[in-house]
């Protein structure tokens, strides 16, 4: 699974992109986020307030209950501020 981090999620994790292999029971966005929190202190900090984190799976906005699978590209970012 390919993970991308943008804006302050990138700053806090110190990572812009990483390949991960979560356990087999991580099949939803929500479960993935919980599992990522423990990956490093930076991840824990970045994901402390999940209400401030938006998730896209394969370039589509996704809810915590939406599925994720090993071939997905998952992006984590704050609410957008373009325009």
């Amino acid at each position: 699974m390919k993970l991308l981090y943008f804006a302050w999620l990138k700053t806090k994790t110190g990572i812009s992109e990483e390949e991960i292999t979560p356990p087999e029971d991580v099949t939803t966005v929500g479960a993935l986020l919980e599992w990522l929190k423990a990956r490093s202190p930076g991840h824990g900090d970045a994901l402390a307030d999940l209400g401030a984190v938006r998730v896209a799976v394969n370039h589509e906005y996704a809810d915590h209950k939406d599925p994720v699978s090993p071939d997905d590209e998952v992006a984590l970012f704050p609410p957008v501020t373009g325009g």
Partner: protein
Amino acid sequence: MIRVQEEDFDLGAELAALTRGKTSVGGLAVFVGLVRDMAGGDAVKAMTLEHYPAMTEAMLERIDAEAKQRWPLEDTLIVHRVGRLLPGEQIVLVACTSAHRQAAFDGCQFLIDWLKTKAPFWKLEDGPIGAKWVEARASDDEAAKRWKTKTDAG
């Protein structure tokens, strides 16, 4: 048409291209967003726009298609810049042409409202105490909500 680019755009040339030879167009509505020198009471020295290229393109195409489905638009244009910008610089251009003025206006407002709440861009402001990620504004969410339809999934 949608475009994401680092370089500045020539507003006059972009708009001229939208209407040139199109004698069915009765109205052109345009919005240009610019970098302000102040934000929330703090001076802004510069602004850096980051984005998620693959998703940006997908979202902008979708926003554009949605506008064309909702209103009788002849043409649309979205140009969004990324990278480091200084106060006074152009950030974004949205424009709609239509036979009718209200469709052009509504399409234009819809495009910028949806872009601001859906397209994956983030602003990093360089201010008096260093760089700070800009926070999303509730007023932008409110502005986008007025375009919500019953069948709109999000």
